[in-house]
């Protein structure tokens, strides 16, 4: 880092790729990860991830055969960890699309070395998220029937399109589809690179996946346009998905849920948590695969700045909720928020505040922003804090609503914990497989950045 500061080029254009990299060395560095035996750490991680993913299937099988009662959900807390986890995972997924689509449109070149992994993360997070609405009914074969907007034939009965849960189905499935397409389109040139380096079956598989990519100028032209269009389609989705997820709560009548601030608040929170997760994963990936020269401190610092900004939006939203509760002069609304902070779930609330509002403030300091251990710890804190945010919104609002007679308390069971840990295992397994078999960094895009650097460094052609 010290040599970076001394490098006069850094003043003009911050280096996004460090070290003496050429196109060939870049291709080699990234491709070789997928071509050779993974490092020991990969196996260690897999040894954790696969049993956890197995636990997910055990828990879900138990749930489906027995009933939702194996979780801690009750009356009045009809949603507990299930929907908390759903919203949390969906939130995690947000950074991927934001990085790939919005930052692309804003020509933020620094996104190139992290966008691939972030997009993959999005997909896997959405997959994990999708498990919850499907399984929280306890009878997923029934839930599947309402997932599809298909009329109930003999009576021609449709789903209830007034229900935010129905909107969720569309929002999340659209998001998953577009994200997958976006990710895949971005992968095509890199898959072709891998194909060209491979032999035998591997070559055939990558040949199939790369859809006949030749790298001709004409293909590049189409590719760039397609990528731009998908970025354009994805951009509103970043805002819409979590807005709609927030409607699950905002359209209800329950104090603590019935809030107009939710859409922007949820979107900010989603980006906040998504970036925290990207940092968590990238820090690990660059350490395991020695990608320090590609995922630089610059990338990580930029993400810390995004976290700081969104973290403050989230903190502001927390304050606004309290202010509005007081300003509304509505007894139930006021109590809902006082109860959050000082009721039986005070610990959850203050965990959330500490993690989400206090800890990101440390990113004001450049030293912390550029310290890998510090940002890793803070990112973990934010992941925890954002989980608690969803838990606080869902459980503390439900556990004490209007009539004191019906008040209750939610405690998770081992199946709740197992299901959550299980989705983490699934996520990790998918991510590790992605690291193992696909180029984790967009080779073609990083080459573009490399090229720009050469241009600027050498004072133009």
């Amino acid at each position: 880092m010290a040599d970076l500061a001394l490098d006069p080029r850094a003043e003009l254009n911050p280096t996004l790729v460090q070290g003496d990299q050429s196109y060939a060395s870049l291709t080699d560095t990234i491709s070789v990860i997928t071509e050779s035996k993974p490092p020991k750490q990969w196996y260690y991680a897999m040894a954790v991830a696969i049993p956890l993913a197995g636990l997910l299937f055990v828990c879900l099988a138990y749930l489906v055969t027995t009933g939702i009662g194996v979780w801690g959900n009750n009356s009045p807390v009809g949603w507990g960890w299930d929907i908390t986890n759903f919203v949390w995972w969906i939130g995690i997924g947000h950074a991927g699309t934001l990085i790939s689509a919005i930052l692309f449109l804003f020509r933020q070149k620094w996104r190139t070395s992290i966008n691939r992994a972030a997009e993959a993360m999005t997909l896997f997070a959405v997959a994990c998220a999708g498990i919850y609405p499907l399984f929280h009914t306890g009878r997923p074969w029934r839930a599947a029937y309402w997932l599809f907007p298909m009329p109930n034939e003999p009576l021609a009965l449709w789903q209830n399109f007034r229900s935010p849960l129905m909107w969720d189905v569309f929002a999340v499935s659209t998001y998953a589809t577009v994200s997958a397409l976006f990710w895949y389109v971005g992968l095509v040139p890199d898959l072709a690179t891998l194909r060209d380096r491979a032999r035998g079956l591997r070559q055939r598989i990558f040949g199939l996946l790369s859809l006949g990519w030749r790298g001709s100028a004409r293909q590049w032209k189409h590719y760039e346009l397609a990528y731009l269009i998908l970025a354009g389609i994805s951009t509103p989705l970043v805002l819409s998905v979590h807005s709609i997820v927030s409607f699950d709560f905002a359209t209800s009548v329950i104090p603590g849920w019935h809030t107009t601030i939710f859409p922007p608040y949820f979107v900010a929170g989603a980006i906040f948590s998504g970036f925290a997760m990207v940092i968590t994963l990238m820090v690990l990936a660059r350490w395991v695969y020695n990608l320090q020269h590609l995922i630089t401190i610059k990338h990580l610092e930029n993400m810390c700045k995004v976290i700081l900004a969104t973290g403050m939006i989230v903190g502001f939203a927390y304050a606004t909720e309290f202010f509005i509760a007081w300003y509304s002069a509505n007894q139930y609304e006021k109590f809902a928020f006082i109860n959050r902070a000082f009721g039986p779930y005070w610990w959850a609330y203050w965990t959330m505040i500490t993690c989400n509002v206090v800890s990101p403030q440390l990113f004001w300091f450049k030293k912390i922003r550029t310290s890998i251990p510090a940002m890793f710890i803070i990112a973990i804190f934010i992941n925890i804090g954002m989980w608690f945010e969803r838990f606080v919104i869902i459980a503390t609002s439900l556990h004490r609503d209007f009539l004191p007679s019906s008040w209750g308390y939610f405690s998770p069971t081992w199946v709740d914990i197992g299901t959550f840990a299980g989705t983490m295992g699934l996520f990790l397994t998918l991510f590790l497989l992605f690291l193992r078999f696909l180029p984790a960094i967009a080779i073609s895009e990083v080459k573009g950045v490399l090229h720009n650097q050469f241009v600027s460094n050498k004072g133009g052609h």
Partner: protein
Amino acid sequence: MSQFVQINPTTTTGKKYWRSLSQLSGTPEFKQWVEQEFPAGGVDAISSSSRRNLLKLMAASFGLAGLAACRRPVEHILPHSKGVEGLIHGKPLHYATVATVGGAATGLMVETHEGRPTKIEGNEKHPASLGATSAHMQALLLNLYDPDRAKGVKRNGARSSWDEFTAWAKDEFSAAKQGDGSGLRILAEHSSSPSLQSVRNEIARKFPKAQWVEFDSVNFDNPRLGTALAFGQPLEAHYQYDKADVVLALDADFLGLDSQSVLPVKQFSAKRRVSDHNSQINRLYAAESNYSMTGAMADHRLRLRSSDIGALALALATELNIGGALKVLSNASDDKARFVAAVAKDLAAHKGRSIVVAGPRQPREVHALVALVNQALGNTGETVIYTQPVVTAIDSLAAVNQLTSDLNSGQVKTLVVLGGNPVYTLPADLNFAKSMSKAASTVVLTAEENETWAAAQWQLPEAHIFESWGDARALDGTVSIQQPMVAPLYYGKPALEVAAIVAGLENTRAHDIVKSNWSAKWGATAEKSWKQALYNGFIDGTKLETVKPSADAARLFAAIAPALKPAPAGIEIAFFPGHSTWDGRFANNAWMQEAPDPMTKIVWDNPALLSQTTATKLGAVNGTLLTISAAGLKATAPAMVMPGHADDSISLTLGYGRSACGRVGRGVGHRIEGLRGSAAFHIAPATVSNSGATYQLVTTQEHHTLEEPITGKLRPIVLEATMAEYHHHPDHFEHAVHVPEVVNMFEQFEWKGQQWGMAIDLNACTGCNACLVACQAENNIPVVGKDQVRRGREMHWIRLDRYFTGKMDDPQVVNQPMACVQCENAPCESVCPVAATTHSPEGLNDMAYNRCVGTRYCANNCPYKVRRFNFFNWNKNLPESQKMVFNPDVTVRMRGVMEKCNYCVQRIEEKKIEAKANNRAQLKDGDVKSACQQVCPAEAIVFGNINDPQSRVAQMKKQQRDYVLLEELNIKPRTSYLGKLRNPNPELIHG
């Protein structure tokens, strides 16, 4: 409403009937019946030559005759396996019958579907029911189908049969073997059955020295013994609460478990009903140790140890200057003295229109004094009337003491136990199981394989009341015939038949005994009267005459005053029947176990209730196990702080901790009976220590006040006012909550035609749980067990919210029944993704169970949290017999399905179909009654068409007390509440 099909009036069998119709139709009985059933032209049809009419009649006869084959008159209760003409499948039949509590009868109307009883209602014409029942009576249905009932005759645990028993009994109960019967003892439950009495007489004639002992662990001996003390003869006091303006209840939960029927609630609530702000209501004072439902309804409540009630009564008598005692100057600073002074003044101002009543736990002297006070107040003959008791008035405690000592001394050769569970319920110091083994032969007839069953040689299964014939008297003497509707599921026989076997009667069939007993009295009109009695559910003109006793005040006062000294200081224990278990007989009834205690809201347990002060003194918190000892006996029970409980007093609930019981009740709660000695049967001084161990208690309500925690702000959920406030500000309830004008964004649906709504009068509701259990029976609501209730998954569609108000050591209590309020703008409906909950054009918020996928979003968005989710398949692996309890008109829900109250939509539809079939365009008010409404003894729940201005519900909603919960949400609930009123004595309000 009710429909009674009584076809074959003779005792000829169904088979004969089919063989020779013409012969049969010639009998005068049949003609009579035809006349009754087909008043227009029925009999003419036989004589006329019209082929058409003859065929019509034949068809009717065949159809209805077929019914006879499945019904009792021929004493063959057969399954409908062959199909019966005339019976419309899916159409219920109703049978009038009777159930007893402590011997006193309540008339019932039992709904049966395809030959199996599915729902119990009160008999509207029966004087002790007037259409209502208690929660226990509702739960009798589940007892019928209890898979753990005693099944088949056993001898020392080995399989036997009724034939073997009868053969043995013939020898055992022969004159040769028993002689004059000095070695024969029969221990039975209190009974008012005239037929059983006739068999008893027969036994007495045959074995003059045999003794028949009656015992119930929850009994009403003391009131009767008190009247014996006062008037020289045991009498039954009938309190006319509908005529009293001032009532003082001394440790008497007359609105709850301390009465033998629901009649007091009916009468009391009549005096509590107001139509407008100028109405008057009665005033209720209660002095009691435990917080009872009566205490909750009281306008003033004095918390006082049960053992101090006598002294309080004496102070009151003194204050009223009864018996010539000197008026003691009251010390105005003392709460108790102020209470006594104010009550005395109020009572004196309402002579002839007041009632003083004492609870059955109180000793006979207190009851004698109460009788005296009522006499002095001129209430006797006005608000308190006396009749002869319908059960034998004995000191049953002394009787079982005698019985045990007879057993121990070897005097008893043969012991016959007819019903009950004496090994479990008799005073613990008698060690009855051991004494029982001293008799050479023991015969036990019990409903379940209970503790007594285990100790017997001959083990006989007792038939359920719905399986056997019998009769019983209501408290006022009215006789009802107990008619069965189903053949004994487990080969049981009623006590009457076993008594007949003991008596050596030739015909031991209960039907024949009962019928011949009454036919003898009726003479020529026997058949008609019998049918009439079965149809009505009671026998006209069997009411007992009132007697007008009079007590010699001075003499009596002198005699009883010494017994009414203040009790010594220290902790007392008092025993109470279980709201769920009664005396333990409902221990295996899951509906009752899961019905939350009306006051504590505890399920599946019987904690020792005490005040916060006493708990602090003992170092106990909720769930601390206390070791309680009294008179050499010991028991353990978990402590629970009951706000408003008297200090230095512990209230213990009977009927738990059963060791020999079915799978539901075994080991549930703690056995308090082990502490209940013959010297300390009702109230006793005790020593209590903290064992240090803890125990988990589970309630259905975790927050007990309307005050928010942290902020301490009161929530306007239950609205309350005093009579004075309401009189001066009739709009009190309208202004309790300020709701800004709510604007609708969308065009509102026009609610035309029949629109269902409900009004619940909080002023009448006692929180007795009858609606909760009735709803459970009507709507096939599952039970979930203690652990699941702890997790907040109870399934009751209607719950009784109970809130404390005021000081926590001496609070008042309000009850609020809460079920789905059928919002017009229902928040649950808009959020359901599959439209599984939608609105009907008649204003019902319907559930389509088979559309529900189980997102629980509707429950989350329900501001009243009245939706219930099937977290598991609660109906999995049900025993065959328990499947029979289901109401076939209501879907049994699978796991993953949401459910909730729907105003008994099946009843609405049934009546609509009936009206349509009869070409009636509209239903009349009262045609449809929801299950909760029908059962409610206080008539607090009124349901009907709100678009009909004449309907009762519309009238109720017009009152100024009417309000809806959470009006500001603009969800427009169809259920509204009528604000609660209290009528405090101005003299006791301040200071």
